[in-house]
């Protein structure tokens, strides 16, 4: 190992951060080279004194008062973080709002589309979200429309009630029947509201494939009451208008 190489490695040698073989090579060189041995002793002491001197100088340090005032002011400014560091808070609020909206859309509400739409500011938007396809039938003026998602299934026939439209004179229930043999008796509805039979007025049907869509008119029922539709004597769905 050359003297220059040894001297460059001396600091690493003093701090024992050399691999064992390199350390052994320097040990061997220092044992045989008086110049490098003296240089090593000098450097070790010099490094120690330099470290002490610099640390002593640092310990005597005083932060200039104007800088200290500036630092305190900058901490006051740092209290309010910029928006990109506060985004988790905003994300949390948005998350809670999203959960609330999903819950709102997923529950069975008893409000009519007209009641929802009459809410200030967001009423019409909420009505669109809650009742996306709710349109009053043309022959039922001023009707309020409620979307319903009730169903029942017996013997391979599935009954689904999907919409109720009510105005001052008529309550129209739309329901679908799928599967099985759908005849006049099978589609015949009966409606009960608070243990009272609701007078039936008539119905129309529309068939598409194995789905029969029935629109049945009854006397109107006041809002908020539980109503049970029985179709064909065996299928029952309860809902609110």
């Amino acid at each position, binding site marked *: 190992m050359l003297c220059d190489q040894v001297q*460059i490695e001396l600091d*690493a040698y003093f701090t024992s951060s050399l691999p064992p073989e390199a350390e052994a090579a320097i040990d061997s060189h220092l044992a045989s080279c008086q110049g490098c041995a003296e240089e090593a002793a000098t450097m070790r002491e010099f490094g120690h004194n330099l470290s002490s001197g610099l640390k*002593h100088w*640092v310990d005597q340090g*005083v932060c*200039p008062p104007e800088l200290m005032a500036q*630092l305190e002011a900058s901490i006051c400014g740092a209290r309010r973080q910029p928006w990109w560091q506060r985004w988790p808070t905003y994300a949390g609020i948005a998350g809670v709002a999203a959960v609330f909206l999903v819950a709102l859309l997923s529950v069975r509400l008893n409000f009519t589309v007209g009641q929802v739409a009459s809410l200030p500011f967001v009423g019409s938007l909420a009505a669109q979200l809650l009742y996306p396809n709710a349109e009053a039938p043309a022959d039922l003026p001023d009707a309020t429309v409620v979307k319903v998602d009730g169903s029942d299934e017996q013997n391979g026939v599935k009954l689904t009630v999907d919409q109720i439209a009510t105005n001052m004179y008529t309550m129209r229930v739309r329901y679908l029947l799928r599967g099985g043999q759908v005849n006049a008796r099978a589609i015949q509805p009966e409606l009960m509201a608070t243990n009272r039979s609701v007078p039936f007025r008539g119905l129309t049907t529309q068939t598409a494939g194995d789905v029969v869509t029935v629109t049945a008119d009854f006397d109107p029922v006041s809002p908020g009451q539980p109503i049970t539709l029985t179709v064909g004597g065996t299928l029952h769905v309860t809902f609110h208008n």
Partner: protein
Amino acid sequence: MTAEEQFFALYKPEAGRLYRIAWAILGNEADAGDALQEATIRAYRAFDQLKGGAAAFPAWMRRILVNTCTQILRKRMRVIPVGRPEDFADDQVAPDMALAVDSDAWDAVRELDERYRAVVVLRFLNDLQLEDIATALDIPLGTVKSRLHTALKQLKERLQTGHTTRRGAM
């Protein structure tokens, strides 16, 4: 006591030392002030992550400051298009010189070329290992060793011959 008051209760006794550490690494007081401000804001924002309580604060705060300063140094060194400072080393140094370092240490170190000064300060003031200095300054380990070797030779010469220009230290 608010978090801000707790922070400053620990910070103020260290402020003078921190200021000089930044000054030693960066070489001038203006940059030291900027670095200290940046490091202080970083530390305050991470204050709730301090482990070990008040006793751990000085070392924790120093680490943040040294990291901030070496980041600044790395950016600065990338834009200095000069040859290797090792090429300008003066090898004419007597091996048995007097070791008149102590209070004169900073006056001698501040005269060094920035690349030498940074290595010397990180090694002998902040007690970083050579590998850590190489990482902090983004230079090879061999370069750290050769710069340190050259810097120590220059320092010994300056301290021996009294060529150090004394500047008023705070």
